[in-house]
């Protein structure tokens, strides 16, 4: 059903190697029923690189990102994360997923747990960390996003911006090798966007590998190592931010940018 290529994992062996890109997507197609959403995507993110993905609504940005940790089952194509072919049915997905942090547009905090419990749950169940170690890691990451004092609050008691920062801290608590963001600021009131972007910039400065789907062109220009413009399920254009945002080559890119800038 899913064509699987073993080449990547055979070449590189299991586990990350310095040479391999963090994420490598080859000829990825994804169809929902008869609706072809991704039409052969070739895409990669290198270790330590910050790649921003932009494009109009419905172009398949979220679907691409969700395929990278198999929240969506690819229809065809290969996805290799740190040398591990995740489209291989023998791959232990749960283990791979602990190495990829994801932050969604909707914060998806667990509403029945406190902030601290949100951060320790997966550490304890998936990483088998002890209670104390998990709490320690959690507190360290809460401090990083500036919310140390909210450890015992419930998510509903926080503003949207605070919730999103907790979601980032939760992902970081798994010590991921890379972070994927899907429009992390779209659900926020304008004056709360800044704090979240600030945390993300800090992460980028620390050298985290990041794939960021965003409409924040300012962020893409300032932080992105590379900008990828998608439309209609294909990558139309990519390059350094100055080129893609400042001097787009393709008509579709120009049209899109004229509307959002």
């Amino acid at each position, binding site marked *: 059903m899913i064509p699987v290529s073993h080449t990547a994992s055979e070449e590189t062996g299991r586990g990350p190697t310095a040479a391999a890109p963090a994420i490598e997507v080859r000829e990825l197609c994804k169809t929902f029923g008869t609706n072809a959403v991704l039409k052969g995507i070739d895409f990669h993110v290198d270790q330590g690189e910050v790649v921003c993905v932009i494009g109009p609504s419905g172009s398949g940005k979220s679907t691409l990102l969700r395929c990278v940790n198999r929240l969506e089952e690819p229809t065809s194509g290969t996805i290799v994360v740190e040398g591990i072919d995740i489209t291989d049915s023998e791959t232990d997905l*749960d*283990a791979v997923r602990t190495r990829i942090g994801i932050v969604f547009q909707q914060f998806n905090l667990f*509403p*029945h747990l406190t902030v601290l419990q949100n951060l320790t*749950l997966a550490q304890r169940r*998936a990483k088998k960390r002890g209670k104390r170690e998990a709490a320690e890691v959690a507190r360290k990451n809460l401090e990083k996003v500036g919310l140390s004092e909210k450890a015992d609050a419930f998510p509903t008691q926080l503003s949207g911006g605070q919730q999103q920062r907790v979601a980032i801290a939760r992902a970081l608590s798994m010590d991921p090798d890379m972070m994927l963001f899907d429009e992390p600021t779209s659900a926020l009131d304008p004056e709360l966007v800044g704090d979240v972007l600030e945390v993300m910039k800090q992460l980028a400065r620390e050298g985290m590998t990041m794939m960021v789907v965003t409409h924040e062109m300012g962020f893409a220009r300032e932080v992105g190592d590379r900008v990828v413009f998608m439309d209609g399920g294909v990558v139309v254009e990519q390059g350094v931010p100055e080129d893609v945002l400042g001097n787009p080559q393709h008509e579709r890119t120009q049209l899109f940018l004229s509307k959002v800038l």
Partner: protein
Amino acid sequence: MKRSTRRHLVQGVLYVVFIAVVLFVVLSADWGRIQPYFFNLDVAASLFPEIVLTAAKNTVIYTLIAFVGGVLLGLLLALMKLSPVLPYRWLATGYIELFRGLPALLVIFGFAYALPIALSWQPPGGSTGAGLIGLIIVSSAYIAETIRAGIEAVPKGQMEAARSLGLTPLWTMITVILPQAFRIITPPLTNELVIIIKDTSLLFIAGMALGDRELTVFARDGLTSTANATPLVIAALLYLVITLPLTQLVAKLERHNKRGR
């Protein structure tokens, strides 16, 4: 005439009509004729304390057994119905459709008599035990649908967030989905409880020993021996004493949930 004045007038007329209807019903009823049949004080007095100590107590016990059994079996069925394994889904769907489509009366009859004949096996607790099995079977079919709806009402993002943190499907269900699902379905689940309270009156079809009698059987015993309907009225009042606090609780929970949103 101003609109607001007209509205007040209409409202006034409605009030008058309403009070007139209530008065008509109250006055045209011949309370004196009802009283000896439905509120005979001597008959009422003869029912106590047994109607509370035996009958109401048994109603509560049967309700708890049927409810706990129904929730456990219902949870299993709900998970089967949501399972990716096709035969499980078929079995659960068939079971639920069958037992929701039949009158509880017939199901209890079937389990009370067909099961022992077929398996040459007497269920524990004699005829009441057999009837209770029937009641558990029926209630589990309804509760399964309630629990399934609850699980599906948990936003999809919760499952995705948990899985992308590396939690296994089982741990995701236990620590993230079910706690939220049960919080969502507390009101409908309490409604199921109220329905079971009243359905225990159907257990009689399986036969009942003296000490096992619940409210309806007890009342019908009183009705035949005294040739008077007062026992039914007293039983009705006791049902209300048991159910009303629960329905009040449901209403309160629903108000609470609504505010929480």
